[in-house]
């Protein structure tokens, strides 16, 4: 039976965001991105294309980076969500945030929260040994090279084209990660 076009359907959803549980009561159509920005005031996560093409909305859900624009908030009941606000804040930046500052890994800054959330989780993927399209050996050691980082970060666009500096910032973290695991 067809719905009344004006009829709305709401859902109660509990989201654990940056360690705090939020009780959301929102229309079923609400994406995780709109819930964060418009319902919960967490505006660090940005809306670029709203279609999964630019990566500005990247957040980390249950340890994995995803596009917050292409998922419904009501599907995340009980999930653990980390946004850019949860990675660091002024005066207490995360090491990767500091590396972005040190390497000037942005110009306008709009894509930066998504870049940093994406890269944070991407470095975990490398640490777990996930191969990429450019890995020479599907089953061997994965090194954080420029080619690997470029391929793995292809879901995050930067219209200012700050890519060389973004890659430098991520490489610094990747080198630190390697040093940390070997030394």
């Amino acid at each position, binding site marked *: 039976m067809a719905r009344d076009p004006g009829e709305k359907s709401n859902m109660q959803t509990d989201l654990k965001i940056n360690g705090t549980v939020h009780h959301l009561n929102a229309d*079923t159509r609400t994406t995780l991105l709109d819930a964060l920005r418009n319902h919960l005031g967490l505006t660090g996560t940005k809306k670029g294309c709203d279609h999964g093409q630019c990566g500005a909305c*990247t957040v980390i859900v249950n340890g994995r980076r995803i596009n917050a624009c292409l998922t419904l908030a009501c*599907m995340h009941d009980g999930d653990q969500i980390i946004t850019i606000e949860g990675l660091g804040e002024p005066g207490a930046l995360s090491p990767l945030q500091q590396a972005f500052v040190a390497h000037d890994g942005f110009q306008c800054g709009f894509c930066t929260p998504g870049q940093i959330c994406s890269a944070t989780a991407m470095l975990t993927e490398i640490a777990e040994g996930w191969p990429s399209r450019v890995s020479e050996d599907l089953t061997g050691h994965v090194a954080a090279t420029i080619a690997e980082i470029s391929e793995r970060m292809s879901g995050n666009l930067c219209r200012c084209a700050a890519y060389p500096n973004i890659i430098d910032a991520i490489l610094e973290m990747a080198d630190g990660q390697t040093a940390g695991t070997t030394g």
Partner: protein
Amino acid sequence: MKPFDYQRAADTSTAARAAAKGAMMIAGGTNLLDLMKLQVLTPDSLIDITRLGLDGIEPTKEGGLRIGALVTNSDLAADMAVRRSWPMLAQALLAGASGQLRNKATTGGNLLQRTRCYYFYDTAAPCNKRMPGSGCSAIGGATRLHAILGASAQCIATHPSDMAVAMLALDAAVEIEGVSGECRTLPLNDLYCLPGDTPHIETTLAPGDLITAVVLPPARPGRQTYRKVRDRASYAFALVSVAARIDIVDTRITAATLAFGGIAPRPWRDDAVEQALIGQPPTRATFETAADTLLAEAVPMDGNAFKVPLLRRTLIATLTTLSDGGQS
């Protein structure tokens, strides 16, 4: 998006019953929500199947692999058994979408994703797939992403998946649970329909059918790879792609399984291409014959005529690589 009711399925029968009544199943949602935002799809209700536990990867008694329908593309590509024994599948998965999308996209959803035809996405344009009988805007329009094989006068859209192309070359089968709880196994090759006069019908699934798993048969001998050609180095759909496995014993090709992406309304397989290879020496002449066989009935348009020589070269290059550079 249009308003919709949302329900979370606690078990497969709830999901199947809801779907049989018209609800659309949602899992990763990366394709469905995109289409709903554009109102290409306007379901009245969604049934969320993400908590059905169909997310395991386990070996089968026969030595194959059973992949739960909700296994993400990321987890499947990272699975060590896949990387070791079915590497073309890992390569195909890693060639698709972006890191973020692969973390959400599921095995079942990837198989059932919709075409990226520009006109299917444009609700102002006629499209026989979106609105049967309205016409095909791609014919006579922009056709860079469109089919050169298997299309019809009603639709020339391509199936966009990389994963499904590799699974087809690996002779995968799909496990399906029907609305009354009965389970069946279908060769992946029998899942997809050609458009003909009914391009809105894309699969042989019945209302309420739930894909629960994909089963790979045991790994077979030979070398295999997935090669994708696209407009940029990463995060783009295939213009053409080739999933290929060939085995060579004593200077003869003894086995060949191939599938192709980006060129047809479904992941494409052509037994005649494989027969053109089996029993022959792995030479350039053999590979050229196979490519000619594949492309014999190609029907290119102005905007995608480049795919004929591109696919020919890509197939020959892929087979040459797999046969150690080929013999002269």
